[in-house]
């Protein structure tokens, strides 16, 4: 059986499973549509949150970004897990106690203001849409590879699939579908990693193999990697090269953003009790950590494998020949990935070999002059293909490759579905029912939720065709926006009785707008390429890149809210009572759909 058929079987079977579950659990009433009737166990909820959370950015993109940069991109690992600590300690139990369905409802009630609620809806839609664009990038890569079509066609097919089950499933469908997706994606991520770790280090646990011994050379794996990449003029894998300020701010933005993203916070509305909300965040991180502890091993080992494939006789001997790439089956992956347009090589100096090295390094330029090289000949290696190509690079059996294709799609589709649900509930529940037409029927509310989903997916697909970065980088921008807008409002709503309606609205708007404008100035207005006035290599404000700006935006949000609230009237007594009741678990009943 050829690889294409195998991929189709794996992807097809996993889809049949998700759609089957979605139909079986089809949503009935609005209460079920949003929060699955609150009957979800913390472990189940944790697993579904993990699937919801780990998107194309974590699964498809992150290990590739770590592989080609090394230590400096540990920021993704710490940032995307550290946010759960903030979520568990600062938000989850209180929001569950509050007992409403959406984030913007909490903000509207706590700040006794319809304006605050609508501003929260706006923040939520901006952050979620940016996030979906990143997912669409990943969907395009995954579908492109396994259907052997180019990126654009892959993206359009993916968009139709996301639409199909997000629209007809609702949260209950999504909760159980996501448990199935988690299982598929974690198997797909860890099985190839285990094979590769065994091949390279003899250790079946990739996370330990990373710090183990490279069997072929007898040296520690990381020392071997450092040596082989520096031989080719690249920076040492394990050392600190990036700007420290950006590393800290970027990590902080991802952490705060994690705790401010509505589709994750919504998960904690679905557990039965306040104490369960605390445990749920822990269980979610357990399931997430299984992937995140494996990811750095995947990155390092893939970098080693790729480098050795390009220099099969060692870095000081001859490079791989064009003939070998075209005929040896170990290099088949390069041929198949070239079809997606995401991998490319070119024999620039016509010596029949492909030299892969850092042509910006002075020492390598010397060596190139001696040996007659004319620049790096592995001309294109899109970071987002690394995880999906990894089993092929390591020459693993066909079924593992099929499984990884299914896993990558599970990751991208599950998050896209969760985000679309958050967007649609914001529009139908908060915007239409809450502000425009409070008398709308249940049927009308469901219908408007579905129309909102369809519109969101069309916009995201359109922008996903020209994304502002690799999947994980686009997603990082979404986190920056959530960090700057939603998280500070939620936190001040719980931990301060002094912040009033005006303060909260001013804070959210200040945080959102400064961050959004800063991003647009560096990435192009509305992410349209070529419309940017600055570049992240030479940013506007000190050395702070647009991806790291979320933490600054959050600080602006907090400061603005405190200053404005200090100058205006304190919140009324009933709001202080509300805050005090949110702080204690006793009396948390089932949530009400209306208020």
């Amino acid at each position, binding site marked *: 059986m050829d690889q294409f058929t195998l991929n189709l079987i794996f992807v097809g079977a996993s889809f049949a499973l998700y759609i089957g579950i979605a139909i079986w659990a089809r949503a009935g009433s609005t209460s079920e549509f949003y929060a699955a009737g609150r009957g979800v166990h913390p472990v189940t909820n944790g697993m579904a949150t993990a699937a919801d959370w780990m998107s194309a950015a974590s699964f498809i993109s992150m290990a590739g970004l770590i592989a080609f940069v090394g230590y400096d991109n540990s920021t993704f690992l710490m940032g995307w*897990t550290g946010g759960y600590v903030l979520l568990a300690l600062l938000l989850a139990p209180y929001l569950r106690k509050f007992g409403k369905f959406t984030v913007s409802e909490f903000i509207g009630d706590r700040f006794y203001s319809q304006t605050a609620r609508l501003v929260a809806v706006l923040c939520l839609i901006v952050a979620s849409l940016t996030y979906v664009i990143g997912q669409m990038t990943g969907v395009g890569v995954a579908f492109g590879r396994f259907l052997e079509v180019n990126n654009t066609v892959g993206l359009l097919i993916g968009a139709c699939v996301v639409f199909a089950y997000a629209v007809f499933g609702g949260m209950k469908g999504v909760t159980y579908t996501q448990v199935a997706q988690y299982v598929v994606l974690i198997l797909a991520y860890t099985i190839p990693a285990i094979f590769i770790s065994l091949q390279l280090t003899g250790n079946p646990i990739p996370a330990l193999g990373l*710090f183990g011994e490279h069997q072929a050379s007898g040296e520690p*794996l990381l020392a071997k990697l450092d040596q082989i990449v520096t031989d080719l003029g690249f920076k040492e894998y*394990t050392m600190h090269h990036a700007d420290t300020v950006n590393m800290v701010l970027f990590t902080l933005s991802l952490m705060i953003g994690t705790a401010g993203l509505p589709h994750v916070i919504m998960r904690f509305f679905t557990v039965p009790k306040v104490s369960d909300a605390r445990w749920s965040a*822990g269980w979610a991180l357990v399931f997430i950590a299984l992937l995140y502890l494996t990811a750095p091993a995947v990155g390092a080992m893939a970098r080693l494998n790729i480098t050795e494939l390009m220099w099969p006789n060692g870095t000081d001997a001859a490079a791989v020949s064009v003939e070998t790439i075209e005929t040896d089956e170990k290099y088949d992956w390069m041929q198949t990935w070239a079809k997606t347009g995401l991998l490319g090589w070119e024999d620039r100096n016509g010596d029949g070999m492909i030299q892969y090295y850092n042509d910006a390094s002075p020492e390598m330029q010397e060596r190139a002059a001696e040996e007659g090289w004319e620049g790096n000949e592995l001309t294109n290696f899109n970071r987002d293909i690394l995880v999906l190509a990894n089993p092929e690079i390591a020459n693993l059996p066909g079924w593992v490759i099929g499984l990884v294709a299914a896993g990558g799609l599970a990751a991208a589709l599950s998050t896209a579905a969760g985000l679309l649900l958050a967007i649609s509930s914001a529009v139908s529940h908060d915007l239409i029912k809450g502000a425009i037409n409070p008398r709308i029927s249940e049927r009308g509310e469901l219908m408007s939720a579905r129309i909102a989903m369809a519109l969101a997916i069309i916009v995201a697909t359109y922008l996903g065709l020209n994304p502002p970065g690799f999947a994980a980088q686009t997603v990082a921008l979404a986190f920056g926006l959530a960090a700057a807008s939603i998280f500070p409002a939620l936190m001040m709503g719980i931990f301060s009785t002094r912040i009033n309606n005006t303060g909260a609205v001013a804070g959210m708007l200040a945080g959102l707008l400064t961050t959004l404008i800063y991003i647009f100035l560096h990435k192009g207005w509305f992410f349209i390429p070529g419309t940017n006035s600055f570049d992240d290599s030479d940013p506007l404000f000190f050395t702070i890149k647009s991806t790291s700006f979320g933490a600054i935006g959050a600080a602006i949000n907090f400061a603005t809210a405190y200053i404005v609230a200090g100058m205006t009237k304190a919140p009324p007594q009933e709001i202080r009572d509300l805050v005090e009741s949110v*702080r204690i*678990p006793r*009396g948390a009943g089932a949530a009400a759909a209306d208020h």
Partner: protein
Amino acid sequence: MSAKDSAMAYWKANLRIIWISLVIWALVSFGFGILLRPLLAGIPVGGSDLGFWFAQQGSILVFLGLIFFYAWRMNRLDREHGVDEE
């Protein structure tokens, strides 16, 4: 002690636990993983150093420990102050 004082004492105890947890949270990630890494450079861990391990794996394990500790500690605190869910 009145219900109001008790709620106040509960909240203060909660805030103290949160502060301690957040200090550890920042220490392992921003501290050991990034800013204090040079101080840990002398401690080798499998081909690199302890700071590298904290940045790539250690901080995640500590985060997990913190969340479960907080859940366990708070559920106990709820009962001590009689504010748990019946």
